[in-house]
């Protein structure tokens, strides 16, 4: 079975981001999607802490300590970018102004429910950050995650077992095995990598998958 590595997964998402799109990339693997959008293209990245037009990491002697992204990494500002406060930044998210948000996930349900902020392990204090706002607000919410847990258990489920981030919010799921759309009919496989078959992927998925159209 063909399993993409992290770089290949991020590259696959990058292919689906149109020029001129306003995009928020979540912390972790989603952030690396930007590395696969080539320099001759223009995507405008939003960072929840108040930046539109996030540019690449600065040279070490060019660091501005206040200029960080949501993952607390130093960044730069593109020509044409700007700064704003938390209220305006989240107005952009919640108000439907972002074209695409790409988030990681613990679990996704067949209805597009997203669970990515808490597990059922209560020994750690909970933390939610901006995940719930991004989940409800972006015009299209893409999830980028491995198809199964490290223990090879499915993450695409009939129902999420972990606390929800948002209900019915996911539009498309990019995993290391396939690309899957959340549709009114259910989960529709859009693309199978390499020689992966629907049966292969279904075997690692709890929710029922519909074949590609």
């Amino acid at each position, binding site marked *: 079975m063909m399993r993409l590595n992290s770089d290949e997964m991020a590259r696959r998402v990058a292919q689906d981001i149109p020029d001129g799109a306003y995009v928020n990339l979540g912390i972790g693997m989603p952030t690396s999607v930007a590395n696969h959008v080539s320099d001759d*293209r223009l995507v405008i990245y939003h960072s929840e802490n108040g930046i*539109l037009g996030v540019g690449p990491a600065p040279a070490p002697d060019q660091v501005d300590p206040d200029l960080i992204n949501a993952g607390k990494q130093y960044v730069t500002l593109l020509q044409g970018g*700007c700064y704003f406060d938390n209220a305006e930044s989240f*107005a952009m998210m919640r*108000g*439907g102004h972002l074209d695409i948000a790409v988030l990681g996930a613990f679990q996704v349900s067949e209805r597009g429910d997203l669970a990515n902020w808490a597990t059922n392990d209560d020994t750690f204090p909970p933390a939610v950050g901006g995940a719930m706002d991004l989940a409800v607000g972006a015009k299209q919410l893409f999830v980028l995650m491995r198809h199964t847990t490290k223990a090879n258990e499915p993450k695409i489920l009939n129902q999420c077992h972990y606390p929800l981030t948002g209900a019915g919010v996911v539009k498309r799921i990019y995993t290391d095995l396939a690309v899957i759309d959340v549709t009114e009919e259910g989960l529709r496989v859009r693309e199978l990598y390499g020689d992966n078959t629907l049966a292969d992927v279904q075997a690692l998925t709890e929710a029922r998958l519909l074949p590609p159209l």
Partner: protein
Amino acid sequence: MIVMNKTCESLRAAVADIADGSVVMIGGFGNSGIPLQLIEALRQHGARDLTIISNNAGVAEIGIASLLKAGQVRKIVCSFPRSSGSIWFERLYEAGDIELELVPQGTLGERIRAAGAGLGGVYTPTGYGTRLAEGKETKVINGKGFVLETALPADVALIKAHRADVWGNLIYNTAGRNFNPIMATAATTTIAEVSDVVSAGELDPECIVTPGIFVDRVVTQEASRHDAA
């Protein structure tokens, strides 16, 4: 290299897709910060049955008054329709030919902002216990009365700014901001009339008032030359 450029070459083209029955926000307070050339383009375009959301209802024969005079407006949502010289509004109102939804000015602003920010509504103390709260949900929070006011979105916002860059970032002139920055956030399509358009990076990123994400089209006042040609 892909270049983003939201500049529209002609005022006529900028408003060409405004459909009959649209809800149209128009920025401005008194004569300050009004997109007069976009309004004139909308008048010439001729879309009818419009709902206009604006602070005032126009004076004399220009701006919103010109749309009223042309019979293009079915309803107006505003805080202060009755300025000296609002003859066209008064004429239509007395004849029962226009619907008025009167909203306190700060409530109008919050309802517009709520639409732009994805909120369903806000509880405001303004108007509590008055005629303008009649029929609305109220709630006492910590001993103080509030009125539920719901989000007010639009299909189109026509706004006036001082300068844009090609990404659609905007800066304004003095008190010309008024409703323009919040209306920019609250419409499906936002069209800005500006004095000039500069390259990306020419506006100070610390001083941009309206980030370009809220702006779909930018048109300069010079563009009227294209329309005349």
